[in-house]
């Protein structure tokens, strides 16, 4: 019932890193490509995969495109598949609450019903409003 005298201390080391930097190291078969910028100048990332199958495991087939790294000349690079772009902001900058933001996710465009459409046709902001409302009232 009570704890044994031995314990896996390695977990404590991991949590230190998680809590200190407020960011996360994910273990993934994919690698982020951080070079992209959207038209508004916000940093964008795309996940790179060594095979189409690996990409389709994460995204729809249509969203996975072949990609060749290198200088753009089409020669000498490495072939990958990559998923659609996504904003890198909250993780790279360290997520911080913006008190001026009362609407849905930052990477989103507001619509009249409060649901939002992401530029890549992903709806975001469908959760979170009630929590913000209660938080603002001290709940």
């Amino acid at each position, binding site marked *: *019932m*009570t*704890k044994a005298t031995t*314990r*896996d201390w*390695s*977990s*404590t080391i*991991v*949590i*230190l890193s*998680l*809590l*200190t930097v*407020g960011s*996360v190291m*994910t273990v*993934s078969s994919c690698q*982020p490509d951080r070079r992209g910028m959207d038209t508004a100048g916000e940093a964008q*990332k795309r*996940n790179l995969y060594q095979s189409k199958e690996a990409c389709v495991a*994460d*995204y*729809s087939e249509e*969203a996975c495109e072949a990609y060749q790294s290198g200088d753009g000349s089409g020669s000498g690079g490495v072939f990958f598949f990559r*998923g659609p*772009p*996504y*904003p890198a902001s*909250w*993780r790279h900058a360290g*997520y*911080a*609450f913006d008190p001026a933001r009362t609407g*849905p*996710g*930052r*990477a989103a465009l507001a619509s009249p*019903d*409060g649901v939002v459409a*992401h530029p*890549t*046709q*992903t*709806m*975001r*902001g*469908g*959760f*979170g*409003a*009630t*929590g*913000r*409302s*209660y*938080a603002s*009232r*001290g*709940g």
Partner: protein
Amino acid sequence: MRREVTAPRPNIKARMQDIGLWPRDDNPYYDETVAYVFSESQIETLYEASLALEHMIGEAVDHVIAKKRFDELGIPQALATYAAACRRKGHPSVYGRMDLAYDGIHPPKLLEYNADTPTALFEAAVLQWEWLKERFPDCDQFNSIHEALIAAWAKLKNQSGLSRLTLAGMLEEDDDRMTIAYMEDVAHQAGWRTIPTPISELGFDGRGFVDAEGVYVQALFKLYPWDWMAQEAFFDRVVELDLAVMESAWRVIASSKGLLPILWELFPGHPNLLPAGFNNDPALGPRVSKPVLGREGSDIQFIDVPGLPPAPEGPYASQKRIYQAYQPLPCFDGWYPIIGSWIIDGEACGVGVREDQDKVTGLGAKFRPHRMEG
């Protein structure tokens, strides 16, 4: 059970600064200048009571579903239907925290069950264990929370065949961020690929949910109450997809204070329960009125309890209420402790003690480590 003043670890401030838990006012919530000491038999009592309560709560949840008593619990119909379906399918639970009144002498009494979005997990699982190992290495502590969480996530991974876990919550809130970071750690150790995401960044692309990276969500750990989710735009999509979510939707039944009167109906006179009802019945004597889906002690009112004046209204004031016999918390040196008993995958795995100088455990409470002797 006794309260003892102890010398804190000399490095505790640096340790907590390291993990971002030391406040600017030098008045930390986790505070090991005081600790609680329990005898082995008292820990046995807490363990047995927690298991008995977990069993009764499971029966009460099934009763609510069978008798369709969701209105009394304040659960809207769409959520009720989904919660019942999740329970019937046998969706598991990872964790929950029972709040118990216990003085070391009389049977522990259930005050409420945080079965949907419990926090105060990291301090119970890790910080007080570090304290024990450094300050009292020859003593024991009722605490296998950490190992049990890893085992629970490993079991889920094996049973589901899934590999990726998205963890979502209001990451701008310290409590949520810390709990999610810790839950991410134990899930990662259990073999999951983990991705934390602000809950407002969860997306839906017409086929499935996507995380902040646009990657499809396989399984979701959410630190966001089901009754809030049910009011929001994506709830219907969760139901349609039958997304794997932890805690499962049926936990809203266990979490509603409306279950407290039902527990008393089903198990009247049980030593670990307090008399409770849906009506403001003076026969309960001094009593506590609680909103069925309130949180963090907001909008709790005391009735006929000397010395406890009406509290100001908060955001849950308009909710349906239940009435529970008032159980005074024990008083040690002017502080009132409350026991948080952690249930991991259905097993009682440890306790954490919070104490307040107020009779109502609130924002001024301190988390105190504990140890066993004898």
